[in-house]
């Protein structure tokens, strides 16, 4: 199936938001979306920043005269900030919520190739954990 980039972004972030709001571990923890709200500055507060990085869009079929199918790939990066010092307990739990969302969530147009956590380390007052989700979807032009 094909989709527009806006529809793909809506689908990907809806998969994330549905799981994030439903899970007791993550529910109520602030989410910062791109170009909407400012980062959290309180070092005692956990938060997550959602980022979408498209990489390349290559033509995925031979030109048939009217339409061209392009394969879009990229990464969703969820940067989780948890107050430093609990031995990855909360960070690991929140990362698992995101990974489960993309491994088990409703998928319509977008395929999620992989989802894995990267423990970055201390950043200011927080421990930072990135969950990187690789995605693929097709557009028709």
């Amino acid at each position, binding site marked *: 199936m094909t989709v527009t980039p806006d529809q793909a*972004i*809506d689908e990907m*972030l*809806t998969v994330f*938001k549905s799981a994030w709001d439903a899970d007791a571990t993550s529910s109520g923890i602030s*989410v910062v*979306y*791109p*170009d*909407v*709200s*400012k980062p959290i*500055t309180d070092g005692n507060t956990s938060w997550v920043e*959602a980022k979408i990085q498209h990489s390349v869009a290559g033509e995925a079929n031979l030109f048939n005269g009217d339409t061209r199918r392009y394969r879009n790939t990229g990464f969703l990066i969820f940067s989780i900030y948890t107050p430093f010092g609990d031995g990855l307990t909360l960070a690991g739990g929140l990362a698992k919520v995101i990974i489960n969302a993309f491994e088990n969530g409703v998928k319509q147009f977008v395929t999620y190739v992989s989802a894995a956590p990267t423990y970055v380390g201390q950043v200011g007052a927080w421990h930072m954990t990135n969950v990187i989700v690789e995605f693929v979807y097709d557009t028709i032009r």
Partner: protein
Amino acid sequence: MAFDYTGVMTTAQTLIDSFGRDVTLVIRDTTPADATKPWRGPASPGTDITLVAKGVIVSPSSSRGSFFGAEYVNDAGKLIRRTDKSILFAENAVSGITMKDVDKIIDGADTYRVDRVNVLEPGGSPIIYEMDIKK
């Protein structure tokens, strides 16, 4: 006995009222138009919070020299550009809003984005806010 900062706060406000001018502080509305898609942002135009207050606009290096002690780069290590400014507010003039949430300063025809907010706060008593602002 704890020092009483009331007199210092009054002096700060008197000086800024005397030498400053009215500017508008704007806190952008971030309430999403669609709660199920907060990444799509607020309705356009949103309902912003605004406050008019007296502020003194100075060059970033002069304010740093007075009480933050650095020039040409800010505390985040970013270079200060020639159009960057700092603006000072007395606590009493802006006590109705949360200063760290302010997004924009409108000074006549000029609109600045807020980069950072510093506060001179001895003994937990905010006296002066200094904002790094950029055009």
